[in-house]
């Protein structure tokens, strides 16, 4: 059992939903990102989705696009992001880390080399938003072989047939995209999301995390109560420090508060 599986077991035991915080590393500088992750973990994030910035993040909304742009301008590279995992681990951070990036990054580095590096650095899995199940072979297998999870996504538009295909390959958890849109979109109605959770839970016991558009404690509460095993919050955090880019560290208290609130929303799990 790895850190990720242990984390879910632990949370289940405590009747809590998981709170994964999504961060694009290096925005606006490495020091801040490291501190940001620490703050999040200390204030309620159960796990970290660590984004390696990509020049053309097509699944991301304006907030994360700007984050990628700033990080790249600041000179962040995939290698530095991977080193960051090691740094976090050496600071004693135990939260599972899922590396997120667009497929071209591991493709260009060499997929195997990429997996080996992040594994060695201390990550538990990878999430590649532009690698649907059709393209995941042979990468999914390679990931498992290296002892990592490949996190697959499921969307409101996913058909029942594909849902089953995806769940068959699911490892670690499945990432339910709450809405049709990009990261940072506003989650207006949860009815589609709730139906999605029901559908997925009917077919699998793999944990199901819900992401996209979650920014408030109530969002988390509703989703967790509907059966989700956790929520992912990303742009909502970036939005806070985005307004204080001169000295983003000043934003950390507010982010801490927000993380705490979200985690509160994950706590009342009724099962």
């Amino acid at each position, binding site marked *: 059992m790895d850190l990720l599986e242990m984390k879910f077991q632990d949370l289940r035991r405590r009747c809590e939903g998981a709170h994964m915080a999504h961060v694009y590393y290096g925005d606006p500088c490495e020091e801040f990102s490291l501190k940001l992750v620490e703050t999040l973990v200390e204030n309620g994030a159960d796990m970290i989705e660590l984004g390696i910035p*990509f*020049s*053309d*993040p*097509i*699944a*991301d*909304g*304006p907030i994360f*696009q700007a984050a990628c*742009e700033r990080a*790249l301008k600041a000179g962040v*590279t*995939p*290698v530095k992001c991977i080193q960051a995992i090691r740094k976090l681990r050496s600071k004693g951070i135990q939260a599972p880390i899922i590396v997120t990036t*667009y*497929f*071209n*990054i591991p*493709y*260009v*580095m060499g997929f195997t080399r990429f997996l080996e590096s992040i594994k060695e650095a201390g990550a538990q899995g990878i999430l590649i*938003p*532009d*690698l*649907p*199940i*059709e*393209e995941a*072979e*042979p990468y999914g297998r390679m990931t498992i072989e290296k002892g990592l999870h490949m996190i*697959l*996504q*499921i*969307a*409101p*538009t*996913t*058909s029942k047939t*594909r849902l089953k295909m*995806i769940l068959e390959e699911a490892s670690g958890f499945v990432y339910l*995209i709450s*809405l*049709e*849109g*990009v990261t940072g*979109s506003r989650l207006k109605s949860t009815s589609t999301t709730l139906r999605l959770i029901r559908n997925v839970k009917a077919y699998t016991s793999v944990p199901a995390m819900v992401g996209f558009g979650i920014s408030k404690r109530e969002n988390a509460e509703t989703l967790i109560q509907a059966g989700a095993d956790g929520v992912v919050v990303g742009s909502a955090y970036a939005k806070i420090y985005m307004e204080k880019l001169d000295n983003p560290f000043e934003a950390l208290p507010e982010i801490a508060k927000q993380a705490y609130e979200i985690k509160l929303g994950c706590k009342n799990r009724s099962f």
Partner: protein
Amino acid sequence: MTKGRFGRYGGMYVSEILMHALLELEEAFERIYPTEEFQKEFHGLLRDYGGRPTPLYYARNFSKHVGFKVYLKREDLLCGGSHKLNNALGQALLAKKMGKRRLITETAAGQHGLATVMAGNICGLKTEIFMGVKDIERQASNVNKMKLLGAKIKPVKTGAGVLKDAVSETLREWASCSRTTHYLMGSTVGPHPFPTIVATFQSVIGQELKQQILEKEGRVPDAIVACGSGGSNALGAFKPFIEEKGVRLYFVEGGGESLGAENSAAAFQHGSPGVLHGSLMMLMQDRWGQIRPSKTRAAGLNYPGRGPEISHLCEEGRVKPCYALDREVFEAVGVMCRTEGLIPALETAHAIAYVLNHPEEFSRDDIVVINYSGRGDKDIEAILRYYYGSS
């Protein structure tokens, strides 16, 4: 690694959100395209609305200038002024039959955007067009036309404000509305099934070309030269000749100011395989896989990737990847103006420039066809500036 592969290139590298739309599109295309009803409607519109067949023109004066026979496949005469309508009409019809109510797309030179709103109006579909702010600026005439035709123009400010960024933005938009909206991809790029669909709709160019050259010369040409970025006009022209090994195929990309890293759009010259916008293809990128901005005066060639099929054909050696530099391109415009009274699009002028500047590739008895992909109306300002300085 499944569908829509051309050698190692192609694929469907998109968010799970979009998979249903791509699979639905693939199914619809395979089901609807071969039907007689679709064929009749499509080819009827291409003929009566688009003006097909476009002529194959023997450019006597230009031929004299270069010393061998040159024919121009006149896609500039297609309604809207470029080959783009072939594809736009096909996809708009398909979208209508799929029950979609709206078209979205991106455009750089504006030619594809224009073709899309024309096709959209014909089919009764609303049209929304994403365009980089820099392209909006330099292709003002096409922007105005699109507006007049009722398209909603969405300026894209992210990145460098060019085509690459507009494609990203359109994909993002599509993720939010793919049930009711069709993304009318403008070139043989993007995830499967787009490269196949676009090439299929554009292959009407090559089919006509083949018949016309056989009528005029009794044989296939020795060479076909086409410009391109995504590759749609080139593939359209090349398709029926791929198996005819005697026909040399030249693909001319935007060399830009110089081949230097920051001043070019020549992905075959200094690109490498990579994944962007849903597809594995030849790509301009840094060593980490970050996409490098492309640069060329021809907005329509200003894309850092080459579509998967043309990437494959070049890798295989079937198609020769070439480039022309901005300066050569403007000079080529001048030659075409003087010899044949035609002002080519800057994109098209890349193919012309290649023919003008590479005598070593052609012999006196050669019959060469340039796929004359578009007219230069949209580029008049830039051409004037080159010839007469800023005015």
